[in-house]
């Protein structure tokens, strides 16, 4: 130990630090260390690795560490970081270290014939919605399983509802103002549209399914939030949808059953861009009218509201800590805690995109990680403790990113105006 300390002493100023970690396997004795004040994160990582090597006689494999001081990642020379956070450098500074989340790796690029405007992953199934009015089913290994025509307009939202045994059901919403409910045989890939939901008076932008796979919520340009049944059972009182001619395209084969909404919730003053069900039978809806509204899906009423000053394009809710992140008509991603008394107050602002942010999606396994996609063609991976810089930039898209999904913890998918869906492999 003494030898190590000597090599660190030089002409630079010194700071006393104490290394702490929540990751037991990387524990170090908590004795204070004197380190050069200008040290950066990569050198700190080398230092911690050396210390760990000394305590593990049987050998030590290098680990990439990240460092947090006062809740924020150290991205500058330590003394600069401390100055920014206004921390007294005369006393011992606590430095938390943790294993760095590895960079997601580009794995595949799935070509479509037009913009990929919607995508959702469930286990090893990927569902995409395209601007050429078709839906596509893929496997996560990149194989294309089915092209599904049927809609008469670009598809803006897709959702897997349920996959049980050899049947899968999923929903799609479109500019053609319909919500289509589909059933697929997982062995034969036979697909049929079992229900066509009519009721929206303008294009539909978004769809989400509730936690019991029983209900769908949709929103779009008619400013109305609508709730529909998500079950695929045939109800004899439903009429057969005879299809409607729209510019020479007829929706439905005549065998699909028409459905109307179970509930319509007015309130938003401009288009609804995103809907999210909670596990408590509530729905969050985001809108271009600068608000995010929380609705009670059972009673059909408004519970609360977050008011911002930019149009919201997308929201995502963490299943682990229930906070909301938002993509808006500006370059900042904002984090809100709807449960707190001061729900409308932005808890953190994440700035890195150059241009508007179109989509955000929380990790379902890490409570601090999320991805964002923007008009700068870049998909970014963020740790909520680092608002000034993302962990990684995933480049590759040659067009604006329109959708992103991380429902399957092992892959991150993003669709863009370059007609591709890109797949990145992620640590679970």
């Amino acid at each position, binding site marked *: 130990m003494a030898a190590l300390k000597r090599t660190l002493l030089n002409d630079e100023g010194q700071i006393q630090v104490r290394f702490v970690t929540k990751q037991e396997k990387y524990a170090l004795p908590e004795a204070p260390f004197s380190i050069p004040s200008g040290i950066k994160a990569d050198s700190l990582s080398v230092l911690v690795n050396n210390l760990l090597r000394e305590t593990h006689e049987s050998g030590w494999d290098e680990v990439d560490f990240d460092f947090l001081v006062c809740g924020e990642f150290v991205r500058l020379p330590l003394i600069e970081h401390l100055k920014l956070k206004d921390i007294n450098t005369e006393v011992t500074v606590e430095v938390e270290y943790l294993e760095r989340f590895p960079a997601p790796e580009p794995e595949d690029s799935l070509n479509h014939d037009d*913009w990929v405007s919607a995508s959702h992953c469930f286990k090893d199934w990927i569902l995409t919605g395209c*601007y050429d009015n078709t839906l596509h089913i893929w496997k996560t290994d990149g194989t294309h399983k089915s092209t599904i025509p049927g809609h008469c307009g*670009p598809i803006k939202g897709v959702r897997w509802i349920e996959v049980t045994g050899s049947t899968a059901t999923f929903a799609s919403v479109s*500019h053609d103002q319909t919500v289509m409910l589909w059933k697929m045989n997982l062995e034969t890939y036979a697909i049929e549209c079992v229900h066509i939901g009519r009721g929206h008076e*303008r*294009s539909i*932008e978004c769809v989400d399914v509730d936690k019991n796979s029983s209900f769908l919520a949709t929103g779009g*340009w*008619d*400013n109305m939030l609508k709730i529909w049944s998500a079950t695929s059972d045939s109800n004899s009182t439903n009429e057969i949808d005879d299809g409607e001619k729209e510019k020479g395209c007829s929706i439905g084969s005549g065998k699909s059953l028409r459905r109307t909404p179970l509930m319509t919730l007015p309130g938003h*003053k*401009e*288009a609804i*861009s995103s809907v999210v069900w909670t596990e408590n039978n509530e729905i969050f809806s985001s809108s*271009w*009218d600068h608000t995010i509204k929380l609705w009670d899906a059972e009673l059909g009423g408004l519970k609360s509201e977050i008011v911002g*000053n930019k*149009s919201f*394009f997308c929201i995502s809710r963490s299943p682990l800590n229930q906070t909301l992140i938002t993509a808006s*008509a*500006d*370059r900042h991603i904002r984090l809100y805690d709807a449960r707190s008394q001061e729900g409308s107050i932005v808890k953190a602002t994440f700035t890195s995109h*150059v*241009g*508007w942010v*179109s989509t955000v999606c929380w990790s379902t396994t890490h409570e601090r990680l999320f991805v964002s996609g923007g*008009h*700068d063609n870049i998909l970014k991976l963020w740790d909520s403790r680092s608002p000034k810089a993302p962990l990684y930039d995933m480049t590759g898209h040659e067009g*604006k990113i*329109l959708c992103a999904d991380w429902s399957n913890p092992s892959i991150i998918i993003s669709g863009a105006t370059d007609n591709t869906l890109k797949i990145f492999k992620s640590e679970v």
Partner: protein
Amino acid sequence: MSDNEIVLNYHNSLLRKSDVDLLRNPHWLNDRLIGFWFEYLENSLLDESVCLVCPEVSQFIKLGELSETSAFVDPLNLHSRSLVLLPVNDSVLLDHPGGSHWSLLVYDCFAKKYYHFDSLIGSNLNHAKKIAYNLNLSNKIVEVRCTQQQNSFDCGVFVCCNAENVMKHCSVNKGELKSVSPLSIDVFKNQRNHMLQVISTLSCNC
């Protein structure tokens, strides 16, 4: 503060108290306010495929000789843009601002058409057509059924709101401007305050 005093210096826009006062009272918005708002929208979007043309250049395109306008128009590279937004004024004067009505002309490259948003439908169509003809990006112009103004002085406000709505719409859609939802009247009612807040925030950051 005197009327002439500068409130905000923002990129190419200079707003004086006399300009900002037009937002506080029910006055017509002038060239400088619309020009500032267009610049503000352009800087928030940071998308090179979208071009917001300022009122002075738009007027020049309408009235100038075709041989003269190329000097102004060529650098804008309009043929390479996915979306072009032009404020249309009904003034027939070239050398100083005037006129009594503003509307918004939009060119969408996906549809290869112009779309005209006029809050007093029919009023500015001939002026819009003149600009459309001179720019020669398309020979089709669609008069959009948009929200109509309910008073005599908010036309400039409608141009600002419609411009922002068109930009948001086109950022997540491939054109289809004829089916843009008409904005609710509340949006237009809030716009003056919204612009005042933005100006106030920007002038504090200087």
